[in-house]
């Protein structure tokens, strides 16, 4: 064993959620009334393209959640020593980008540092100039002349590789597909090219081509260059941005996972039993909702900081501490966001309660608990799903704002919010250091945009009352 697997709390929750999601997919596939709206989502081009991109992000987060302690030295024959540092599988895949630190800022794909330094010239005299980077383009002897050609040739080679594998994979998928549908591969190919398939296979194939190209090219270029430059302490910005994916995704999904049971239970109870139960639940969520969310989060995070500074010895490592803070942030974000869903579910239960099938069940003397489980909850689950998907993008955005006012994730954790927070201090520099901001922007915008587009498609498919322009 060259490593020792370790599980952070958020890892475990994330894995549990993933398993739950897979189970959900299998459950839905078996029930036609549940799978119909989802197949409508997949049939829409926007829906399946967005889903693919979201899954791509999700996969990065998943790989980045497989943590371990790397082995440092062999103490005895059978006993290894493990570092207290925690690495993830993603760190292994992106090893060169993680470890190759420059001294300070450097522009994207640069070979020289961003700021001048005193150094010895060829003839031994002191002069101020831009020094070569330790790693970025270090293999080039004449960077000025060779760089462009090198970048192009590396990119082209990587692209060719990517497209080759992409074509192989897709031919295989289409072959399988044609076997299952008793179609000849040629007709299927023709249909895909003309976008005449039930599911938008052409768009899916093109999205996967783009994702594959981006991944392979950036990984190859990343071996020799800093794709998005480096930050103040010389760390690769591209690596930071990719590492931030896990933080964003976790904030988006764990928050809802933690608070969903609360919202569902209280919403259903309030709507179903009314009377004093309803009064109490309404009181709880109106009170919580009255406190401005940012302030409640700020207060809670401040108190957490007080607690952590007082109990610094309780944490094994910085990573663990940051992880706990992330979990706590999800929790407190959840507490501020469950009220909306709870109110929606309460209103829906109110309506459902008047449905005749529930009265029919009452006429059979079916117990209240069974009525809730069998007749009420399955009939408002679509609202839960819509709200989870809709809230996701808002939570990703919230993380950035909170980190910016220092009440977000731990400053040592990679997150887009922290990237922006650190980069904005350099806004005043001339020429401006724009790459950290741009990297955070591109990564965050892509995730949030496709999450929003996906949410729209899901809402249209799951909620029959939705208003559409073309109606």
């Amino acid at each position, binding site marked *: 064993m060259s490593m020792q697997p370790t599980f952070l709390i958020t890892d475990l929750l994330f894995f549990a959620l993933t398993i739950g999601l897979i189970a959900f997919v299998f459950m839905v596939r078996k029930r036609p009334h549940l799978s119909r709206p989802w197949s409508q989502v997949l049939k829409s081009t926007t829906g399946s393209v967005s889903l693919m991109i979201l899954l791509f992000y999700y996969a990065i987060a998943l790989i980045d959640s497989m943590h371990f302690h790397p082995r440092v030295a062999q103490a005895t024959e059978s006993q290894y020593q493990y570092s207290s540092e925690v690495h993830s599988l993603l760190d292994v895949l992106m090893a060169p980008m993680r470890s190759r630190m420059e001294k300070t800022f450097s522009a994207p794909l640069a070979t020289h540092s961003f700021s001048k330094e005193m150094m010895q010239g060829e003839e031994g005299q002191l002069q101020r100039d831009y020094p070569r980077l330790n790693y970025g383009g270090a293999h080039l002897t004449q960077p000025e002349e060779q760089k462009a050609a090198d970048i192009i040739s590396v990119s082209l080679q990587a692209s060719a590789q990517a497209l080759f594998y992409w074509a192989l994979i897709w031919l295989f998928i289409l072959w399988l597909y044609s076997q299952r549908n008793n179609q000849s591969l040629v007709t299927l190919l023709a249909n895909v090219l003309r976008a005449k398939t039930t599911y938008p296979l052409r768009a899916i194939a093109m999205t996967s081509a783009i994702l594959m190209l981006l991944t392979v090219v950036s990984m190859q270029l990343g071996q020799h260059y800093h794709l998005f430059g480096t930050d103040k302490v010389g760390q690769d910005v591209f690596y930071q941005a990719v590492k931030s994916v896990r933080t964003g995704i976790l904030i988006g999904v764990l928050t809802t996972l933690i608070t969903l049971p609360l919202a569902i239970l209280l919403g259903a109870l309030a709507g179903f039993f009314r009377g004093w139960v309803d009064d109490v639940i309404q009181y709880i969520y109106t009170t919580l909702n009255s406190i401005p969310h940012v302030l409640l989060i700020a207060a809670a995070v401040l108190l957490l900081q007080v607690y952590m500074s007082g109990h610094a010895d309780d944490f094994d490592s910085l990573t663990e501490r940051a992880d706990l803070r992330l979990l706590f942030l999800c929790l407190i974000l959840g507490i501020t966001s469950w009220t909306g869903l709870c109110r929606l579910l309460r209103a829906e239960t109110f309506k459902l309660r008047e*449905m005749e*099938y529930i009265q029919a069940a009452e*006429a*059979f*003397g079916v117990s209240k608990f069974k009525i809730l489980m069998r*007749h009420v909850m*399955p009939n408002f689950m679509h609202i839960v799903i819509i709200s989870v998907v809709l809230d996701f993008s808002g939570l990703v955005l919230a993380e950035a704002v909170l980190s910016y006012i220092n009440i977000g994730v731990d400053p040592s954790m990679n997150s887009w919010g922290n990237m922006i927070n650190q980069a904005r201090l350099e806004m005043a520099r001339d020429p401006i250091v724009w790459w950290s901001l741009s990297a955070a922007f591109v990564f965050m915008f892509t995730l949030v945009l496709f999450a929003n587009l996906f949410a729209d498609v899901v809402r249209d498919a799951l909620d029959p009352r939705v208003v559409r322009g073309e109606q």
Partner: protein
Amino acid sequence: MSLLVVNGLSTEIRGRAESNLVVSDISFQVERGETLALVGESGSGKSMTALSIARLLPPAARVSAGEIKLSGRDLMQISEREMRDFRGSKIAMIFQEPMNSLNPVLTIGDQIAECVRRHQSVTRLVARQQSIELLAAVGLPAPQRNIDEYPHQLSGGMRQRVMIAIALAAQPDLLIADEPTTALDVTIQAQVLDLLKDLQSQFNMGLLFITHDLAVVKQTADRIAVMHQGELVEHGTNEAFFASPKHAYSRALLEAIPTAQKRLQRDLEQDAKRVTEVTQLEGEAAVGPILSVRNLQVHFPIRGGVFRRAVDYVRAVDDVSFDLHAGKTLALVGESGCGKTTVGKAILQLLKSNQGSVLFQQHDLQSLNNEALRKTRRDLQIVFQDPYSSLNPRMLVGDILEEGMTALAVLKTAQDRKRKIKLLLDQVGLPADSVLRYPHEFSGGQRQRISIARALAVEPKLIVCDEPTSALDVSVQAQVLNLLIDLQAELGMSYLFITHDMAVVSYLADEVAVMHQGQIVEQGPTDQILLQPQHSYTQKLLAAVPSL
């Protein structure tokens, strides 16, 4: 020259993949002062035809062929701007739901005057004066006050009168009335129909009357056009149509309407089957009624004041008493809001009653404890009105049918329950493979059959049928009514049949109780009530029912 000539009209709704023809190649004309009734069941394309004429189709639909000529001008050829001048002044429309069809945040006066001023250049004051006159003409009790009121302050019938006033505001040549009385109670329906006829002759308008109700058609129409699945299947004068309908669909439509005569016929056919049963049932009747309700009162509090204490009560059910004998059908008849549904729910203990007793098989249901009540629920079931909300869309039909049996422990083993479900589906005329299907795969009539099967699953002695057919088309209604009658003959249970429809009452009830404002004003054997009503309300109600 005819006022309106529709020639070869086809209208389609564009779908994702292909277009769906909802009106196909229909032709008819309407003369001045004449009423043409466009009759058909839901989905027959009659409303689409009306909207095509006014060019008010929803964006997804469009006229794909044909011409529509109004006083010689082809409406399909003129610009939208010209068409707007036509709407209101040449063609006016009345819709089905008067509440939704009026703007809730504008006063009645605003909404009428708006139409007046659109088509005549008059001052605000003159328009207001005209609006008041129009309100008087359509019979609003206090036009001077009503004009400054909002739609929600008026009753349903009044709102429909306001709609008519709006339609008349610019003295149109053609009035299109799309199911104008369907949402109204029968007594109000009679008034509104009278009003429409009066105004039509007064203004010499052509009236295109769209409805599903053949009885209404017989009273109002000069000529009749029957639509079926987008096509015009029959077209003729009122007399000719009712004397001898030519098309098979028209005949089926007429035959589907329940009447007392048809019941007699049916009874004769089934005599042999019934003889044995009647004797048996009479024996039971001697023992006493299966259900007797005494002085039942259900009051809903009206809450007010700062602390929401009950300041007054709505007497939804006020001192109701009746008996129902085993194997018989008692119809509880009344207009909307008379409390008939509340009675049904109070009997089933789905609602708490304030006073009175419900004796079911000699047990007072209100005094039973939970366990005893659960046992009694086996014998007491309900079938609801809305075929769409009465079945849980997330449950398989098999599970829906099984739920009651499991909850009330009717059959112990899953094997037995499965067999029973198969039998039930057979009894209500549904295929056995329905078990593994979801409610949305069934039509309205089929869903009502499932509801009936669900109630039958626990072998009840009494079923409360709460308007089980009023959401169904007339041909489907006939099937469901016949099914209910057959099941009663076969299984011998009693029905408390809650309805507003006199035709249905005459078709299947043994006894009738007429409800009005929470009280039963008259009850007795069906023939007696229908032929010799004693109470003034019953007389009024019966007089308002359009008959064939």
